[in-house]
């Protein structure tokens, strides 16, 4: 059994070198596929992460008509809190608003306003959303609520980000999908070449009484190895690109630091490495399996 496994693996390796050009083309295509997959994955993940971070900071602020009492506002707040897309609702009284305004914008110059609150009547509800894409729905609802004077929201960033990310996901899925198909096609052709080249040997093996396992495994291993190599190369490339981009952004785009949140290399690659390798092995397996099924019947 050991000697057979040895044979099977050795032949699998040898097959790759027996038709170098095809193997090279196959590895290159798989690499391109996995490389793009890695890039897209990191991009989509980071944009999603940034949006998530941004979402926790994006709030819809609702101001009320004069004469609406605090108790009524609290009631409205409860109704809003009950909505599914809402994560939390905070009541900000006029004095709270003034305090935070002073801290944010006036700093040490706030002393001149001692005593009176220029933001009288500005008590409001700050609403935080679970899902920013539902913001316009919420706004529509709020507009229909009696006593609401004004609704402040900044749907621009969140919505654009969400839509951009969705678009990016679709485009990357499409491109990766096409490359996956091309990879499978190339692997199955490379393996078919190998089978054609070793036609005689296969015939002899069958006559001697080699089982399907022994006859087929070298080609399956060839495909899987091609897939693995094709996955490993771009992983290394994406890794270096990623750490360099993070570093570069941290040094040169300090302003973006708030908007763009990078996930750590470890977070990204703890998912990307296994997924890419499994993808590579899967590609190799499917590609060679298709050919083997077609061409290697005893």
């Amino acid at each position, binding site marked *: *059994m*050991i*000697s*057979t496994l*040895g*044979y099977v693996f050795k032949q699998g390796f040898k097959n790759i070198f027996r038709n170098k050009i095809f193997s090279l083309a196959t590895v290159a295509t798989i690499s391109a596929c996995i490389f793009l997959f890695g890039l897209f994955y990191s991009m989509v993940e980071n944009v999603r992460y940034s949006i998530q971070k941004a979402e926790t900071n994006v709030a819809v602020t609702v101001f009320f008509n004069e004469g609406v009492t605090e108790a009524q506002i609290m009631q409205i707040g409860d109704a809003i809190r009950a909505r599914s897309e809402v994560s939390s609702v905070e009541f900000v009284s006029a004095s709270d608003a003034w305090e935070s305004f002073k801290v944010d914008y006036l700093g040490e110059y706030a002393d001149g306003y001692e005593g009176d609150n220029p933001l009288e009547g500005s008590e409001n509800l700050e609403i935080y959303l679970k899902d920013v894409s539902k913001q316009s729905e919420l706004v529509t609802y709020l507009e229909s609520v009696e006593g609401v004077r004004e609704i402040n929201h900044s749907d621009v960033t969140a919505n654009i980000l969400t839509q951009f990310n969705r678009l990016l996901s679709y485009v990357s899925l499409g491109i990766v999908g096409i490359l996956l198909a091309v990879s499978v096609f190339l692997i199955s052709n490379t393996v078919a070449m190998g089978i054609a080249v070793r036609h*005689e*040997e296969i*015939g*002899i*093996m*069958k*006559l*001697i*009484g*080699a*089982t*399907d396992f*022994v*006859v087929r495994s070298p080609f399956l291993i060839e495909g899987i190895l091609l897939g693995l190599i094709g996955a490993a190369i771009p992983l290394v490339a994406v890794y270096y690109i990623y750490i360099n981009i993070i570093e570069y952004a941290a040094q040169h785009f300090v302003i973006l630091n708030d908007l763009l949140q990078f996930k750590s290399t470890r977070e990204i690659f703890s998912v990307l490495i296994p997924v890419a390798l499994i993808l590579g092995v899967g590609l190799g397996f499917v590609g060679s399996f298709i050919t083997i099924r077609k061409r290697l019947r*005893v």
Partner: protein
Amino acid sequence: MITLENVSKSYTNDGTPALNNVSLHINKGEFVFIVGDSGSGKSTMIKLLLRELVPSSGRIIVNGVDLSKLRRGKIPKYRRNIGCVFQDFRLLKDRNVYENVAFAQRVIQTPTKKIKKNVPQMLSLVGLPEKYKSKTKELSGGEQQRVALARALVNNPPILLADEPTGNLDPRNSWEIMKLLEEINRRGTTVLVVTHNREIVNAMRKRVITVKKGVIVSDEEKGEYIDD
């Protein structure tokens, strides 16, 4: 050992069959020549015995195995009972003599230790003990056929099939191969040899089965090569 009962084989639906209602029986330990013109169905018979082909009708029983009842998955195991050599040797050209013989054991999962013991033994038996490192394409035809024989026999099959084993060899090498086949038979292997070599058939005085257009026309102990 080998029984054919009313075996017919047609490659096409119309036209004459390659084998037509052939019945024969070969006992364990026999040495049998099968002769006949080119196209008479001899190789077809070999392929049926190897279960490369299935008969269009009739029954084949080899070494107690009814081939019509043999499941696909059992074919490899079955073939390990049969060694075979051909006119074109069918060696692996990119590997040396040792590897070619070891190959037969590797693919049926023999432990490496046994392979190291068996291969040199086989190479001595066929008279090539020193050439184990040579690439097969550097060998003469006679030597190549010896390697093929060593490979066919290394797994100790009870049956040896040879389809025109001397077809590409000069008379001297042909004789040596035939003598080797006789020696192998003497050691207990049932041997079936398809050949066109009239001189050797007539000299060896073995059982001779003559096939003509897919039909057995003669089957004689200590027979002779029959012409039209």
